């Protein structure tokens, strides 16, 4: 409905254009008028209820939907009776065997048995009543009385059943959805974690959550987004998540006004706080375990139909350097690995720029031996170190991008050819120095150590900024760039939570799950930064 405001104007304009066009004889005139029925139909129908005449009902429906090639109308008598039944459905979306076995057959049986005794009473009985008595799959069945409801239900993928003599229609849920099996997510592999990930079907994902969290406080609220009416579910723990946070998430989702959300990345970009920031402000995951643990921290999750990536808000930067693996491994190795990742993030951001600064500005600050060996290897290189670094960095980014989109086997070849062959040849040809190859490779490897893809990209991007500053102002430039990033970093908020938490503001409790990970039994309180309603992690409620 929210679309209407924005789309109104263009529609009017188009309508005017069509009118002017129509004055000339047009070969497709019939077709275009049929197309025009679609937006009109809603305006004509609202109070228009179904009648008890099946053929006239069908006629109306055929008029409204008959031009659609995938809408099927099938009409047939119930065997022993003169009763006519009609089914309306979209081809391919409905399980016809199910309809036949569990709807048509029981109905026929019901009529053949009851025909003699109570026919008159049945005639007056409402359709849903008959249905409930005839076939017991009552939960997926709903009674519809207007054409508008019927048309909406058909397009939503339900089977509609019309009966001679009944002034209502039955909406039967017999959706036949093809879904992918729940496989291990490729983007977030773990060694010791569960091998299960979300798939593209919303109902299976929510079912998976219910299966894992049998707690009545797990709350799911349903939204429809976009013109395409995609299903979206906001998930949170009612007694943990901050009310204001939940309201804000729901508000932002309601404000989404768009044709189609093709993936959860759309939602992410439409609800984030600062679109100018290079940092990702919403975390996505394919892993139910990760999703659930962030719900338990007091975050709010978003699941979108058609996307295996669930979203979690608010996000803080440290989340992007964590993996579920950190909690499955013992705390000492996990802490070590986290420390390593923070270091890797720093290296991937600043190593090339620091190298440039030292080599082109402050040769005096590096150890003499090293300075000599660097200058020896750089002797034959005709470019300043910035250009050299840029050549290599851009080359490696292109290689990575090339390898990413290709089939796995080809991708490896690209990596091999690009990395080894070209790298080796470039050094031998004297275009780049071997030490630059080392620096660039170290940087690339470090950036692979960042577990979240979107955080990795933003650091890769910022690296070029750092190199630029370093080329202009040396070490001072690197420090300036660090300050700029740090300032942006502390200014940024994700759903009201400072992006830099828990690094700042200091809350000692939250540092248990930051650079180090405390033993799990020590992490007995929820992150304070989320202002959760209940602060203790425990099973017994007071």
């Amino acid at each position: 409905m929210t679309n209407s405001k924005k789309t109104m104007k263009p529609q009017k304009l188009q309508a005017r254009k069509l009118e002017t066009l129509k004055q000339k004889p047009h070969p497709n005139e019939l077709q275009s008028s049929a197309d025009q029925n679609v937006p009109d139909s809603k305006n004509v129908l609202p109070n228009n209820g179904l009648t008890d005449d099946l053929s006239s009902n069908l006629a109306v429906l055929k008029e409204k939907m008959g031009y659609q090639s995938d809408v099927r109308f099938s009409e047939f008598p119930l065997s022993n009776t003169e009763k006519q039944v009609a089914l309306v459905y979209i081809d391919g979306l409905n399980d016809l065997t199910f309809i036949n076995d569990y709807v048509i057959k029981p109905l026929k049986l019901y009529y053949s048995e009851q025909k003699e005794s109570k026919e008159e009473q049945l005639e007056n009985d409402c359709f849903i009543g008959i249905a409930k008595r005839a076939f017991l799959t009552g939960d997926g069945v709903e009674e519809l009385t207007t054409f508008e409801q019927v048309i909406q239900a058909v397009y939503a993928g339900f089977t509609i059943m019309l009966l001679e003599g009944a002034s209502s229609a039955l909406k039967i849920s017999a959706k036949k959805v093809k879904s992918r099996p729940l496989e291990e997510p490729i983007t977030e592999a773990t060694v010791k974690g569960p091998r299960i990930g979300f798939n593209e079907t919303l109902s299976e994902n929510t079912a998976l959550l219910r299966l894992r969290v049998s707690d009545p406080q797990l709350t799911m609220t349903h939204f429809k987004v976009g013109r395409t009416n995609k299903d979206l579910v906001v998930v949170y723990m009612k007694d943990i998540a901050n009310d204001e946070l939940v309201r804000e998430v729901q508000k932002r989702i309601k404000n989404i006004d768009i044709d189609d959300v093709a993936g959860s990345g759309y939602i992410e970009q439409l609800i984030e706080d600062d679109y100018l920031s290079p940092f990702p402000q919403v975390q996505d995951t394919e892993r139910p375990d990760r999703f659930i643990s962030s719900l338990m921290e007091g975050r709010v999750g978003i699941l979108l139909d058609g996307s295996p990536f669930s979203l979690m808000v608010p996000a803080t930067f440290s989340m992007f350097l964590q993996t579920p693996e950190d909690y499955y491994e013992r705390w000492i190795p996990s802490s070590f690995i986290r420390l390593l990742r923070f270091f890797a993030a720093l290296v991937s951001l600043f190593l090339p720029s620091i190298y440039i600064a030292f080599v082109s500005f402050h040769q005096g600050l590096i150890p003499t031996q090293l300075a000599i060996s660097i200058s020896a290897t750089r002797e034959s290189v005709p470019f300043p170190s910035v250009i050299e670094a840029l050549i290599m960095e851009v080359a490696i980014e292109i290689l990575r991008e090339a390898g990413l989109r290709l089939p796995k086997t080809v991708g490896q070849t690209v990596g091999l050819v690009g990395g080894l062959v070209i790298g080796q040849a470039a050094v031998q040809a004297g275009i780049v120095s071997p030490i630059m190859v080392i620096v660039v490779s170290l940087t690339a490897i470090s950036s692979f150590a960042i577990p979240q893809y979107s955080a990795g990209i933003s650091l890769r991007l910022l690296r070029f900024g750092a190199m630029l500053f370093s080329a202009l102002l040396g070490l001072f430039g690197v420090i300036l760039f660090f300050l700029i990033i740090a300032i942006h970093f502390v200014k940024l908020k994700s759903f009201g939570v400072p992006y830099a938490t828990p690094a700042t503001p200091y809350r000692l409790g939250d540092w248990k799950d930051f650079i180090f990970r405390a033993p799990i039994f020590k992490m007995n309180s929820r992150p304070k930064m989320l202002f959760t309603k209940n602060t203790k992690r425990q099973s017994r409620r007071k």
Partner: protein
Amino acid sequence: MLTNTNDRITTPQTAVAVTSIIIGIGILTLPRTVTEEVGTPDSWISVVLGGMVVMIIGIFMAKLSQMFPEKTIYEYSQLVVGKGLGKLFNLVLIIYFLLSVGLEIRVLAEVTNMYLLVKTPIEVTMIAIMSVCVYLVVGGINPMARLYELLLPVTIVIFLLVFLMGLKIFELNHLRPVMGDGFLPVLKGIQPTTFSYTGYESILILTAFMAEPKKAKKAVLIGIGASIVFYLVTVVMVVGALSADGVVTEIWPTITLFQSFEATGILFERYESFIFAIWILQIFTTFTSFFYFAALGLSQTSQKKISYSIYGLLPVIYLIATIPTNINEVFTLGDIVEYIFYGVVGITIILLIIAHFRRMHHESKG
């Protein structure tokens, strides 16, 4: 949204801010300025004593601010001594902050151009750092407090590591004899030290932003305490390494310390680049805060939007920073700032006394 922290800073943030604002030029110059006055290796005692004096003044300032909850000194000065006098005092304070910012940006540029960017014009350095400064200041007090919290641990870790390296040329004999010339030289050193501690006056403004203003005294004490440790380590290490006579001949003795030894076998041989890095970060925190305080003062005194005063003051600061023609004039500017600062402290104490009595008066009335 989760607004509990909005527009308010926590007590640790206040303490960290006080420390970050205090630590600045002093890391590089304090060993010289204090030893020049003291003349004996006892300068470190002066640093501690100076810090204690400063703590007392800091407590007075915190007390004064606590009398007027959620008001900065710019607002309550007019309440205490009336509009005209209050505005005059605000002007003095603003000028003090502006001169400090100009001075510090200039010192930063001087050091950078002497050791890091020999060929780059000094103006480029100043404009670059001022742009970054504005980027932070327009965000207001909260991002500033968070940034200081982010930078301080980094500073502490690097500072300690680097000074541990300095132990290589540290000689305890350089610090002896303790009070060989009696206590008098130590007393003489207190005055230059107190100037290195400037920055604690920020509590006059920070208290207004605190979530728990009752803890302002605690915050200022911890903040000053941490900076005493910083300065003590600096002075002890530098004097211990270069000796009292060696220190007074160097413009930037701390840098000289790190240039005078090589620690081979570890990744780097010389560590002054690390000192530069953390020093630039810490001086940045100092003048950014002063810039913000000046802009805040101007906007609160003139009732205009703060963004106007931020952008309006930029050229003023740039002009102040470019006035000194050489490094000696820079230090002369430093002396002027120092005198204005004593004026500010004096007026603050007068304000406290007046406020104290007027408040008593009010209480007895109502």
